[in-house]
């Protein structure tokens, strides 16, 4: 049994930022991650990270307003204030840690424009910002000699007297299972994109933390808010960054028209993501698409500019579609990209379970509300990853000593062994693909009572089939067959919660667009939806949105 003060689950940006802070605060910190830290999905953020730097005439309140409007007024405004106020400091700190941000002519940090904002305040590293940040945070983890359980898979969180007490996990390389106790745990497990098929998300984005939190009694908030990114490749769903449009790319339909003129005459291609995705889907549905896609057109930007500022996009276009962006437009469509919803936390990342924190995509503070602005996700991870660790310091001091019952470990060992011992049945991938297709159909860019109800029925049915899944690989060493199944169990919890959130919200707001209730209803629905286990069943309730200075108004781009 290993003992730590603070255990962080997940080694992407939120997890590593929390870990570095924990070490700086003098805690005994460990990070547990199912992949090596630099393999984490923070890598995939391409475009940049938002911040209003006051020394160049920007204003955090303008950033906050853009974020709140982007959220379709569902974000908690106190949380948005915290994020936008702390953004400048976060950027400078990242730069000092060694991030190679692009510079302006004076040698200071340079910016590019991004969606939903008039002011160019997105700081960036070519088109590999997430990767550049993640590698630098990993560098810091080496500097601070961080203890990392690398390629370990968490199966369960442990509570003692109602408080969090650690986790049970196994080493993927050896299969060895351990009880790791900790006075506080930060969930930083990222998104759950694989619940949908296709998705821009990596194969590891299976919502582990969301399910782990639900299993110990924490609610998920606003799960129905699923972001469909406007520019993803058809088929495998690989992402092409908003940076392209931020740097001037057009969206055109089969007739060659810049159709955003009709939908967002002021912001054009840089309207909020939900608005752009719906516009694209409308064009496609009305017959002005090509094979279910519209086009992203960068030709007028020129080869040199594309390769210098958007090099990774050019690489993806060439490698996966054989298209040179400087020569031809590339077919793209809206694709599942991000979950605004997540584990409900307060401004310090604390959940309703004492000692349990969440940060990053798996959490919902909530700063993104019904639609996240591009380049606010990286900021979210850095600001709230740090805050969670800071807040845990006092909690850990007061937490008292742990005395976890070792039988927890043997119980979990036999649960896993029983799964391995199942007779030949169906493969987990078969069930996962069914889930993904059903979720995309039911909880898509458009949704309505029928599509949501159908998705709920299918998810219930799917849960019933979980015991029929068998694990072909019976070995201990690198058993990815077992890992995939355990991830599927997590994903079913998340999928069901998403459906229930969507069913509960009787209006259209941000990414949740119901064709049977097309308008936003502020008198009844300035509310968060909350999904939580009540015994075996999911129970859905609501809570009020925090409004500070910005009253909801009509959202026009």
């Amino acid at each position, binding site marked *: 049994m290993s003992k730590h003060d603070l255990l962080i689950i997940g080694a992407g940006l939120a997890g590593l930022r929390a870990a570095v802070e924990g070490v700086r605060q003098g805690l005994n910190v460990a990070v547990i991650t199912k*992949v*090596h830290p*630099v*393999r*984490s*999905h923070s*890598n*995939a953020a391409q475009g940049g990270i938002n911040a209003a730097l006051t*020394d160049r005439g920007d204003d955090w309140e303008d950033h906050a307003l853009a974020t709140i409007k982007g959220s379709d007024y569902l974000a908690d405004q106190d949380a948005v204030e915290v994020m936008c106020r702390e953004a400048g400091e976060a*950027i*400078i700190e990242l*730069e*000092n840690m*060694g991030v*190679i*941000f*692009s*510079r*302006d*002519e*004076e*040698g*200071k*940090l340079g910016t590019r424009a991004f969606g939903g904002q008039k002011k160019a305040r997105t700081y960036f*590293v*070519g088109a*590999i910002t997430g*990767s*550049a940040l993640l*590698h630098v945070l990993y*560098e*810091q983890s*080496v*500097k601070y000699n961080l203890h990392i359980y690398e390629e370990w898979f968490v199966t369960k969180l442990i509570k003692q007297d109602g408080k969090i007490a650690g986790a049970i996990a196994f080493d993927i*390389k050896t299969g060895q299972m351990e009880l790791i106790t900790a006075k506080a745990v930060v969930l930083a497990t990222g998104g759950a994109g694989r619940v949908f098929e296709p998705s821009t998300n*990596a*194969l*590891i984005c299976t919502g582990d933390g969301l399910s782990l939190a639900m299993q110990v009694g924490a609610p998920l908030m606003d799960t129905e808010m699923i972001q469909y990114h406007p520019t993803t490749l058809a*088929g*495998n769903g*690989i*992402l092409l960054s908003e940076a392209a449009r931020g740097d001037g790319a057009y969206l055109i339909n089969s007739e060659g028209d810049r159709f955003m003129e009709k939908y967002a005459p002021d912001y054009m291609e840089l309207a909020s993501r939900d608005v752009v995705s719906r516009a694209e889907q409308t064009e496609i549905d009305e017959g002005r698409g090509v094979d279910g896609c519209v086009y992203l057109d960068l030709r007028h930007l020129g080869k040199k500019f594309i390769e210098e500022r958007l*090099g*990774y996009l050019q*690489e*993806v276009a060439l*490698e*996966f579609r054989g298209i040179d962006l400087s020569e031809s437009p590339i077919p793209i469509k809206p694709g599942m990209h991000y979950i605004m919803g997540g584990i409900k936390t307060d401004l310090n990342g604390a959940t309703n379970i004492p000692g349990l924190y969440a940060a990053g995509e798996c959490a919902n503070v909530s700063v993104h509300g019904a639609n996240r602005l591009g380049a606010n996700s990286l900021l979210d991870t850095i600001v709230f990853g740090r805050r969670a660790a800071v807040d845990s310091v006092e909690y850990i001091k007061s937490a008292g000593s742990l005395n976890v019952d070792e039988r927890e470990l043997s119980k979990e060992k036999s649960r896993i062994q029983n799964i391995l011992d199942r007779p030949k049945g169906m*493969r987990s*991938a*078969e069930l996962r693909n069914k889930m993904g297709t059903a979720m995309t159909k039911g909880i898509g860019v458009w949704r309505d009572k029928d599509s949501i109800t159908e998705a709920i029925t299918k998810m219930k049915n799917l849960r019933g089939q979980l015991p029929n899944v068998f*694990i*072909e*690989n019976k*070995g201990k*060493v*690198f*058993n*990815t*067959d077992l890992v995939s199944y355990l991830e599927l169990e997590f994903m079913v919890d998340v999928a069901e919660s998403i459906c229930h959130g969507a069913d509960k919200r009787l209006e259209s707001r941000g990414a949740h667009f119901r064709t049977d209730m097309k308008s936003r209803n502020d008198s009844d629905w300035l509310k968060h939806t909350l999904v939580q286990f009540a015994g075996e069943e999911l129970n859905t309730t609501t809570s009020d949105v925090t409004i500070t200075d910005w009253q909801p108004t009509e959202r026009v781009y």
Partner: protein
Amino acid sequence: MEAQIKVKRFNPENGAKPFFQDYSIDVSEDSTILDGLIKIREEQDGTLALRCSCRASICGSCSMKVNGSAKLVCKTRIKEVSPQGETVTVEPMSNFPVIKDLVTEMDSFWSKVKSIDPYVKTNFEPEAEHIASNESMTHLLGVMNCIMCGACVSECTALEVDSTFTGPAALAKAYRFVADPRDEDKKERLGKLNESSGVWDCSRCLACVEVCPKDVAPMERIVKMRDLAIEEGYTNTSGFRHTESFSDSIKKHGRLDETRLALESTGLLNISGLIDLAVIGIKSLFKGKIPPPLPHKPKEADKVTNIAKRLDSEESEE
């Protein structure tokens, strides 16, 4: 289309030796090798182990050998390596121990990365950002593109014979700090990189440059660090003496004087090194591999020496 994939299998738990297993799968025209391997794992054989995550060549998980050379399988289309439906052979990377099937043990890889102190070192924390030119920063992007996939290490011919060599990935990472205008530890870094297992142990075979899926060009970074080390005055290395002797010999004789090169690289005052060299010399003698003590004069040697001299003067003009 039907694809034939031959996978090198190994399971440490059953005591059997590695073997090749053939799979036949139905894939679409634009499928990648990773798509194929995932399909095998999900539809035919749940025991197949591999690492993969992003599917978009950014996480660096899925480096493997395809038909003998290291590639990221997520960005390699089956059609590309098998235009006529030929069998595609997939093996784990070389220069790494194998854990299971296509999964390699990366511990030594990461400890080498850690050995170069992979973080920016500054003596003070500025209140705002460091001021640096955009060129100096975008120049580093070439190295920052590295996703630590290990393909270069898999192909490294120096590592093949000397596992202590720091290797192309960690050295490219070192360059990222050496060339970072914010780093204040440049001289110390170069001093350390100048030691045994460092920049001079690269055999300059170009394999790492060729296989890198991100155009990081590790070898070019290594060569650049040799120059920087010399500029910083680190000249007491066999590597430096080797380059000096090499260029002297070309300038003087229009050809390489191999005997002198060996002696001078070792260092004429380096007694133990010279004894080692003598042992190698004697062994070589018996195998007929020893060069003549005095180099023969090639025809038109003066033309070569002229080229060398001209190169020299052009360099000094720069």
